[in-house]
């Protein structure tokens, strides 16, 4: 049929099918700022202005829009300048991945058209239909306020960090004075608590606008699905309806006969090559218990077959025509039951090596011990034991997994894919498709959020097989339901802490027994649980520590990497346990932690025993030590900001006007890690251009975190140029140096040091060339700043002059440098998380009113992106604690594989979130930086749990704090 839209102000007549959505048609017409989030429209990534109103185009038939006006962000892109709304989103750090920023910009235009001075409630209501897993909506609200002010003709407040006076000397605790008010102002402004140890810098430490801001805020082609391919085929995967079944036969003849179908692949026609899908360093942790297509399915949503066809609909129809005969097997979902010896065996095949005990679904059993835990527990004055259960949740990037594969003109396999690990993917894909690594290229464009779920080779082998078979480009995008049931999730765990404490409150022993649920495949099962042990046993000093961990196969949807990677689970247990011990001992909960927490100079005494490649059994001569910590300042700032003193004020805790409500405040301590020592590695190359600018190539994988920007700032600082002179390109296995990828809070620290080193190589040569031009014998006396090289006598030459001289005039050479970095250290960031809650005594409903996190991430290279990382992490952590939960029926089918039934926090209900960046100088990091990305995930769940203790005195050792669970706990008293 033919429809006519008034598209961005001009009539446009297009052909479409009656079933096609407005989203499909707009993207086909080149409006790639309009993006897919789910077929039911609730992510809002696809929102456009339909007759001036914000509406998700996924749930509008194109035919419905016939005769109507449709506006997309492309309407603003009349020239190279940004519209004031776009400019405000860029200036305030309101975009991380930027996947949904088009919708936010359009919503802002519509809102301001109706009300030039909207209040925050109206702004948040407008944003209520645009889900965001990245910003916690803090900076988008600020962006809209700034845009409104500019459009009203007011001067925009510059978006600069607020410097907050330190409250401590960095070492000693201070008593909080309730009369001392916290800093006021918009929570979007990063609050930086400076340290005297940090030298002044020109680009590092400044709130630079993201280097990819323009392409994101204009909605230019940037993401995997934004680039057109001639002859593109569409893939769909036939998925298992059973949690555990043997495939007795597959008949694909009807599917193959369907017009428009080009290939059908399954275990009968794809080579059986064993692998592990987790994107990790070589050699991938064992067991390698997966194949592209198996003759057995192990969870609802597991792969059975895949089809490539002319359209998505034909591929879907072909999937429904594949006849599969299953022998349905009994299934098991609980990790404790799975390893009881009485459960169905999930991996009974004979070609998977290195399963600890396949007959009882035990993937791994690792034990690491320092000292003698049993003896120390036996002699301790106080002994405590507590068991916790944590549940299954999902990362929920708004961009689902998507990959496109094709053969290039040299018939090499190219995959453009939403991945956090392009280099691992290239290496892991090669054996599966029978090609050499050199014949594969992985391109990572912009990614619409990852959070670990894209640290996995999930679609790439499917599109690669289909592209090789059909010799056509093949695209596969997961639906939201598939993203839930068939991608990756956070590991559920059952954990028991046993702790021995001396009479004076000193920990003498801590034992963590963990049973991790890795679902049907190992993937990250080994490493997530070891990180749980590492993080769960490092926060506090105790001479005797033990980690005893069993990892179980089950038939739940597959767990994998999720931001925090075992730490959020462990720290829920640990920080709840410590709270309860403090209460039993009658010690202030923070003071008890302080008495025991690991701080500068202390050994991290279990860390070397829990590595990615195995458990280290012998004692070492030397253990890594904490070299920087800002935890006292974090606690002081956080306590003041939350109003910690109110937890002892009964009149506040029991509001007189609402007798069914109780209030409470909780605290949790967090100590995380920065990268994986001796393993995570990043590379960088930088070359000088004619105009004195630089191209910088990094293997590091910016997921929206701002990594490209931060790495660019590091190079710019070294080279004495503004960030705008550094053109950053990441990451493409043909073009950029190697990098392990975006995970383990490693990019700023590892890849940042690689950038620093590459820049130092270039700087050295620039100085030598400047010395030649200036006639100076001592190049090291030259300084680079303001795009120039200065001699000690004040004479200078511009980098452009050096570039023209070196490229064209004298002793020509390409000035360039490479750098790479792997670290023996893993400096811990620290964090203090405070949460205020209200509990409804009659219903069990918990309402979170305020979250504060003060983080010591060393020096924040970019305080805007760093605080954005904390804000987004807090939002996800809040969901983990409060409302997100996989619900499976007794057959393992997910009951809530859609946003709504699976609830993630919206803009119109997010509590106030305050972030403090407490500077410390970490000498091993680039310009003093440590990690920031994962630690915000660690403290919210235990802080809420501990706030509930404060409010109503109940101790709930299971997540999440949904109304009925809290109600039941209240009933039990």
């Amino acid at each position, binding site marked *: 049929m033919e429809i006519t839209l008034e598209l961005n102000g001009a009539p446009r007549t297009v052909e479409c099918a009656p079933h096609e959505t407005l989203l499909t048609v707009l993207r086909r017409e080149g409006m790639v700022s309009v993006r897919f989030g789910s*077929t*039911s429209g609730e992510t809002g990534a696809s929102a456009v202005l339909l007759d001036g109103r914000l509406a998700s185009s996924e*749930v509008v038939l194109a035919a*419905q829009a016939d005769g109507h006006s449709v506006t997309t962000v492309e309407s603003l892109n009349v020239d190279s300048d940004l519209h004031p709304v776009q400019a405000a989103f860029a200036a305030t750090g309101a975009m991380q991945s930027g996947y949904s920023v088009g919708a936010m910009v359009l919503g802002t235009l519509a809102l301001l058209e109706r009300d030039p001075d909207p209040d925050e409630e109206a702004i948040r*209501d407008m944003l209520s239909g645009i889900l965001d897993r990245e910003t916690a909506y803090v900076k988008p609200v600020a962006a809209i306020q700034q845009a409104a002010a500019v459009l009203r003709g007011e001067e925009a407040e510059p978006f600069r960090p607020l410097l907050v006076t330190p409250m401590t000397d960095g070492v000693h605790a201070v008593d909080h004075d309730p009369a001392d008010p916290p800093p006021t102002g918009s929570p979007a402004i990063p609050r930086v608590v400076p340290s005297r140890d940090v030298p002044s810098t020109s680009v590092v430490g400044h709130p630079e606008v993201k280097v990819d801001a323009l392409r994101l805020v204009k909605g230019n082609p940037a993401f995997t699905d934004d680039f057109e391919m001639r002859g593109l085929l569409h893939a769909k995967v036939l998925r298992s309806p059973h949690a555990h079944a043997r495939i007795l036969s597959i008949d694909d003849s009807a599917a193959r006969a369907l017009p428009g179908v080009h290939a059908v692949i399954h275990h009968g026609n794809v080579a059986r090559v064993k692998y592990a899908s987790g994107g990790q360093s070589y050699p991938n942790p064992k067991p390698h218990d997966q194949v592209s297509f198996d003759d057995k399915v192990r969870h609802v949503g597991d792969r059975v077959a895949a089809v490539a066809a002319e359209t998505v*609909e034909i591929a879907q129809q072909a999937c429904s025509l594949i006849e599969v005969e299953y022998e349905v097997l009994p299934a098991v979902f609980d990790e404790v039951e799975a390893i009881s010896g009485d459960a169905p065996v999930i991996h009974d095949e004979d070609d998977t090596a290195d399963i600890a005990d396949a007959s009882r679904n035990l993937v791994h059993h690792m034990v690491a011990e320092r000292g003698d835990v049993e003896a120390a527990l036996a002699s301790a004055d106080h002994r405590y034991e507590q068991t916790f259960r944590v549940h299954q949740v999902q990362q929920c990037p708004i961009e689902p997994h998507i990959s496109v594969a094709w053969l290039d003109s040299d018939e090499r396999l190219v995959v453009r894919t939403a991945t956090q690990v392009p280099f691992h993917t290239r290496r892991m894909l090669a054996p599966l498709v029978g090609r050499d690594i050199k014949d594969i290229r992985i391109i990572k464009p912009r990614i619409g959020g990852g959070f670990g779920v894209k640290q996995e080779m999930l679609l790439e082998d499917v599109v690669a097989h289909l592209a090789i078979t059909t010799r056509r480009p093949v695209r596969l995008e997961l639906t939201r339901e598939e993203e839930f049931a068939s991608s990756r999730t956070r590991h559920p765990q059952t954990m028991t802490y046993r702790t021995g404490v001396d009479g004076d409150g000193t920990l003498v022993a801590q034992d963590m027994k963990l049973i991790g649920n890795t679902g049907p495949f190992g993937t990250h099962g080994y490493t997530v649980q070891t990180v749980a042990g590492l993080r769960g046993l490092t926060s506090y000093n105790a001479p005797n520590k033990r980690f005893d961990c069993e990892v179980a196969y089950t038939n739940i949807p597959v767990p994998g990497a999720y931001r925090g990677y075992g730490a959020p689970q462990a720290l829920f247990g640990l920080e709840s346990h410590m709270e309860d011990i403090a209460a039993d001992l009658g010690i202030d909960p923070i003071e008890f932690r302080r008495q025991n927490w690991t701080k500068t100079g202390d050994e991290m005494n279990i860390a070397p025993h829990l590595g990615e490649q195995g458990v280290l059994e012998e004692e070492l001569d030397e253990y890594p030590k904490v070299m920087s910590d800002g935890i006292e300042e974090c606690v002081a700032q956080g306590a003041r900001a939350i109003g910690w003193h109110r937890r002892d004020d009964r009149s506040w805790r029991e509001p007189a006007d609402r007798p069914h409500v109780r209030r409470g405040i909780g605290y949790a301590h967090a100590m995380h890690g920065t990268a994986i020592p001796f393993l995570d590695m990043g590379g960088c190359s930088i070359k000088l251009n004619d105009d004195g600018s630089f191209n910088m190539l990094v293997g590091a994988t910016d997921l929206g975190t701002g990594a490209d920007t931060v790495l660019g700032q590091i190079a710019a600082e070294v080279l004495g140029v503004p960030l705008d002179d550094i053109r950053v390109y990441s990451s493409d296995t043909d073009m950029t140096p190697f990098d392990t990828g975006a995970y383990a809070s490693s990019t700023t620290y590892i890849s940042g040091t690689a950038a620093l080193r590459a820049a130092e190589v270039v700087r050295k040569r620039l100085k030598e060339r400047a010395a030649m031009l200036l006639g100076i014998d001592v190049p090291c006396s030259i300084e680079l700043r303001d795009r120039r090289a200065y001699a000690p006598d004040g004479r200078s030459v511009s980098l452009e002059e050096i570039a023209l001289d070196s490229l064209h005039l004298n002793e020509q050479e390409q000035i360039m440098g490479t750098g790479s970095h792997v670290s023996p250290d893993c400096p811990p960031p620290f964090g203090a998380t405070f949460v205020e809650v209200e509990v409804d005594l009659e219903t069990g409903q918990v309402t979170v009113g305020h979250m504060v996190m003060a983080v010591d991430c060393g020096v924040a290279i970019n305080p805007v992106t760093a605080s954005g990382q904390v804000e987004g992490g807090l939002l996800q952590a809040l969901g983990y604690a*409060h409302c997100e939960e996989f*619900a499976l029926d007794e057959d393992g089918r997910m009951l809530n594989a859609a946003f709504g039934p699976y609830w993630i926090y919206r803009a119109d209900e997010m509590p106030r979130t305050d972030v403090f960046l407490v500077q410390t100088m970490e000498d091993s990091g680039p310009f003093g930086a440590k990690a920031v990305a994962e630690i915000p995930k660690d403290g919210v769940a235990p802080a809420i749990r501990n706030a509930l203790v404060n409010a109503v005195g109940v101790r709930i050792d299971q997540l999440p704090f949904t109304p*009925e669970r809290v109600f039941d706990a209240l009933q039990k008293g």
Partner: protein
Amino acid sequence: MPRALAYHRPDSVDAVVGLLAGTDHLALAGGTVLNADDDPTPVTMVDLQACGLDGITEADGRLRLGAMATLEDLVDDGRVPSGLSDAARAELPSTLRTLATVGGTVVSGGPDSVLLAALIVHDARVDVVGPEGAATTPLADLLTAGVPPGHVATAVDVDPAGDCVRHATGRTPADAPIVSATARTTTDGVRLALTGVADHPVPADPTDPTAGLAPTGDFRGSADYRLRLAEVLATRAVAESGEVR
């Protein structure tokens, strides 16, 4: 979504009813439910947007909400009582309430619909047109019986007097409530409606709100818990509605 093989946009209700007599023809309102459905069954869509069913009008002391009035229209129109307008806002987020309609909500609103509960306590009556002509049915009855195939809801009229209050328990403040209670006090007494305790929102007796209820539990709340919530929330809503009156 159901795979639309054809699309019609008739310009009158009569034409709509004529088309709906055809096999596999479905009435399409805003599309937030129908277009989000992943059932691949082939259908013919009959779009209601051009047959004059939008708009909100006042007549005989009642407010007539066209079936194609969007939830955003209810939010924006100052004549809509604020409790009803709040319910429309709470029903769906910004990017969907501009599409979703009053009629679509009546036909497909689920057990958790706070808008339907608010309409019930405002004595909503629904005009339904079918091959045999037009009929007006109280909303609560229509939700029990369902709109028969081949019929289309054309308008919902409500008593705008007074205002309603809602008490709800959900996982988070904006989550669809596990159970909610909406109450409105008029000169005739208190009207009460509950969500989350039956297949659709139901009116309830303010003096005995859980009488006759047999809710089904799910992962958000067991049957017993839902009954408990109904009791607590109804009590609160009734008390507050007396105060706001």
